[in-house]
């Protein structure tokens, strides 16, 4: 089940997938999945090819530095979620919330239905917002939001 991290070699392919060489066996086009994406981002990473699990890397820190960099890059790309930095405005119209927010990727205006279900604190300070199109946005630490932003969103938490 667990892969020996020291025996692993990754190569990033042009299409963004990884090629894994593990003890002379080559696995083309693998992808990685975090088994604990909220609590342990760099541990328990499943290596998957064609929806079949090849094995699990217990701890990424055991990887060689080159493999580690590739794995982290791949995971960050796969798990990318717009990170909210500021909430500019919140308007309620006909039961929908229109929120203008700043993210690390730029400004965005989103529409949210049923805010009780779609604006949630997943963990103590981890805020998750889902818009009407099913897109998700995250605030990793809601305590770091400025006071204004916090006031605007607090009402809906």
């Amino acid at each position, binding site marked *: 089940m667990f892969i020996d991290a020291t025996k692993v070699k990754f190569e990033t*392919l*042009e*299409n*963004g997938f990884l090629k894994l060489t593990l003890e002379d066996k080559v696995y083309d086009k693998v992808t990685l999945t975090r088994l604990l*994406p909220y609590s342990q981002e760099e541990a328990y990473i499943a290596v998957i090819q064609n*929806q079949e699990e090849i094995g699990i890397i217990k701890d990424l820190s055991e990887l060689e530095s080159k493999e580690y960099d590739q794995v982290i890059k791949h995971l960050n*790309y*796969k*798990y*990318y*979620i*717009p990170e909210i930095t500021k909430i500019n405005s919140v308007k*309620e*119209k*006909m*039961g*929908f919330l*229109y929120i203008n927010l700043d*993210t*690390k*990727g*730029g*400004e*965005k*205006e989103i*529409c949210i*239905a*049923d805010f*009780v*279900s779609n604006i949630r604190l997943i963990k103590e300070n981890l805020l998750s917002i889902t*818009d*009407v*199109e*099913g*897109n*998700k946005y995250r605030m990793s630490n809601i305590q770091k939001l400025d006071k204004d932003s916090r006031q605007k969103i*607090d*009402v809906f*938490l």
Partner: protein
Amino acid sequence: MNYFYSMPSSVSDALHERGVDVEHLLYCVKADLNKEGHYVDVHMTFDQGALYILQGYDAVAQDYFQVVDYEEIDIKNIEDLYIDRQIHTARLIVREENREYEIARFSLGKSEQFEQFKDRLLKTKNNEPIDDTDLKNREEFCPKCHNRYPNRERKVCPNCLDKGSTFKRLLGMYMRYKKEFIFVMAMITASTLFNLITPYFSAQLLYDEVLTKGGSWYGKVTAIVLLIAGIRFIGIVLSAIYGIVLARMTPKITRDIKVEIFSKLQTLPVGFFSSKQTGSLMARVDQDATNIYWFFVDVVPYAIVSIVTIIGLLGLMLFINVWITIVMFTGVMITVVILKRFRKKQRKLHRRKHHAVRATNALISDSLNGQRVVKAFAKEDQEIGRYTIKNQEFYDVSLHLGERSANMFPYVRMISRASDTAVLAIGAFSILYGNLTLGSLYALFSYTSMIQNSITFLANMGDRWARCIDAASRMFEILDTFPSLREAAEPIQRDVLEGDIVLDNVSFEYEVGRPILKHISFNIEKGQMFGIVGKTGAGKSTLIHLMSRLYDTTEGTITIDGVPIKQLSFESLRKNIGIVSQETYLFIGSIAENIKYAKPDATMEEVIFAAKAAYAHDFIMKHAEGYDTIIGSGGVNLSGGEKQRLSIARAILQKPSILILDEATAAMDTQTERKIQEAIENLKEGRTIIAIAHRLSTLRDADKLAVIENGELFEMGTHEELIEKQGKYYELHKLQTEAIKFIEEG
């Protein structure tokens, strides 16, 4: 070019500048992310020759598209395209002869559009016909602000919707009772006028003319008292009359609204309910109707009263004394403004308190309902800890609310008292200098209190109006929902369906970007027993939902007896398809009523026969009230197996030509399961049966079996054929056989 969004002219200009013949472009789609995860506008479009990708920034207002990157890909070089769905984003990957690479990255919500876009691109490349019928009725974007409609089934943009039009529409409902409405308004106005003139008689006339020597009414105490009493009495009578009429009229409106909403909810497809919590829907039907009720019984009449009062009183007060009126009015306005701001923040805190209460109650419900599990794992202390935390949140917000109120009101009272004192001082001096009479001063104080109430009411009405409009909008959202799953304009009626079912390239996703079924094709012959097997989450139940048209396919078609199910009437489908699902739902009512739900005019003999066939009769007889036993919420609790047997009895009574059993015997012991299978055997004659089961032994006699894995059709054949194949079915069968052997030997 209509799909999949409206390309701005600035973008088509930019393409034209790069030599693209915009007139011949076929489809366009827009991605919103670059490789680094920054928001950019990536416009993708194609014609017969090439795929064009223009990346940059839309600036619609300035009609200028700032180009960052541009790429053309010869369509002949494209061997394949596919969507790689990640966790929150997805990407479009192109495969050429010797390479594969990403050409677009986008938010997951756009996956469906990109699927359709890439399908059409591939079909164009391969010169295959393209069917855009399903897309024709799609208008996904508001023509004004170009935002997507938040509810695809309701072409209303909350951004652009004129609240006034919602109000007018609501008023329109009110105006169905025009006569009563006019009568009530007339009574309100008359009552208000009487209230306005009362202080003149009880203060000015009494003090200045009756009790003052030389006054025109000096000494006529009895007369003035009778006059005052008479006026007050008339005012009260008028109030009472309009109150009674209003009290009769407004519940009628809310009753009609609630019935209208509930009736509409009954016509909406299953998908509408799965995307919303049932609780929040019920809250809409009840709470929003109540909000509107209070608006019309309380806010609208008193708004009219308040406006009439303010105008009338201001006029009177200014007539009596200008300076005192100005001072009084200023004092009133200051307190109203302060209180309005204060209440705005209080409302937000109340909302938080409301959420805290909900969270606490949810936790209590969760914990108390799961007491068996709590005690089994000895987690009582943990539950207490959880509750304490949630309760603390409630305490914090309650404390904050209380402290704010305690700090605010003395401050407001102080302003009010200061205003009164100033008025008293000015008034006293005015009386001394002969500019004002004592009676007039008393009248002014009475008028101030009346005007303050009216101004406060109007100042706070804005919020109540907004809440009512929001409530009305949410209700109209349901009433206006034009469900995507609806009957054809001229549906085909069939009393009896034979049960020849064909699935052709069927795909489906409940949630955007997460396909459950992918390109499934098979057929079921009439009279066959067809089994569907696969691991949990493979998509088996979804297939059933699609075949019974509880959901519509995202792609592909399903036909029954050669007729696409989208063309068949709902009545034909419901009459001929019986479902026994793993989640049994029994309504509040007697056992007999629940069994008869499928066929209300069934006789008791038929009901008992169906119950016996489903092996439910015995346990029913054990209840003292037999078939009259009340079950469902608040009634007798039945075990999972008992509920399922009632569900089977319901299906047996219905006698459908297509019977679908979704893990129908999952909650039963082996002995009962065998008996049920015998009952089903008896039903098989002339019936198509589609059964899902984890236990392969229950499907052994199926005429054909389909193995579903990860939403795809993996294998198909008879039991013997699949065993011989030694594929997935063989593996599942081996596992189960070994498990049984292990148990028996153990």
